[in-house]
């Protein structure tokens, strides 16, 4: 039983350390190349499709929020007739 536990310990150490090494590779030079490309894109969109999606979602909420706040405050300011 203890031999099995020992083997498990060794295997998990080996697996974890090798996968950990794979994950913790320095990707900064790759990012530097991507963001220094002369694409004419502003920095907030230069990362790719995800940037554009996130920007659109944020702007949609901004525009909707603007409209909603104007409606909510106007509605709050107008006197309500009680039946």
């Amino acid at each position: 039983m203890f031999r099995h536990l020992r083997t498990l310990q060794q295997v998990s150490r080996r697996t974890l350390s090798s996968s950990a090494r794979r994950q913790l590779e320095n990707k900064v030079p790759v990012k530097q190349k991507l963001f220094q490309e002369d694409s004419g894109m502003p920095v907030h969109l230069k990362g790719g499709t995800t940037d554009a999606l996130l920007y659109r979602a944020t702007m949609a909420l901004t525009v909707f929020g603007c409209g909603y706040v104007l409606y909510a405050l106007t509605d709050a300011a107008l006197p309500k007739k009680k039946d």
Partner: protein
Amino acid sequence: MAHQAHAYHMVDPSPWPLTGAIAALLMTSGLAIWFHFHSTVLMTLGLILLLLTMYQWWRDIIREGTFQGHHTPPVQKGLRYGMILFITSEVFFFLGFFWAFYHSSLAPTPELGGCWPPTGITPLDPFEVPLLNTAVLLASGVTVTWAHHSIMEGERKQAIQSLTLTILLGLYFTALQATEYYEAPFTIADGVYGSTFFVATGFHGLHVIIGSTFLAVCLLRQVQYHFTSEHHFGFEAAAWYWHFVDVVWLFLYVSIYWWGS
């Protein structure tokens, strides 16, 4: 391709100042709508917009500095001034609450029984959890300094360990303070004692959470090789903020917890 003939950073046009301003509008109006009409939709929308703005704005700054090399020495100097001025403004923010505390506690009114703590208030024992909290934050000040030296000396693993420890200590403080809040024999509604206690310590707790989050972002960046031994201002800014949070606690502990009991 045009190149600039100066060391300063002319930023790309960005939508985040606008979205941030709208988020502030939505949060403040939302607060008023919540108070008067019991609807939290507007305020929640504002909060979501705020989080999106902060994430994308700071993501862009990391891109501009670490990936595009825009943070030259003069630019970094400006960032340092900026962080120092921001922390100074936060010092003044807390000064107000300390002023309020001393105003009420140095000359307690007859309504309070002419004494401090006021009649009927059982203050927390300063030598129990509050003292532990003091030790936790002081220790975190040591670990964050250890992290800084590790980064400067190129000791990657030690930097990760000490920064993680700092964050864990910050989380431990927050957890301890949360239990204290739950167990306290008085509430925010208990006169001026309750108000000054919970507003001052409450805003401090919020700053601990903000500081811990800032340090956590630095940990992620350190793991991803963003920091070099010579250039790691994001971490330094987080460390300055963390020391500020620690110092505010020391003043809170001595004034409200210890003298105020």
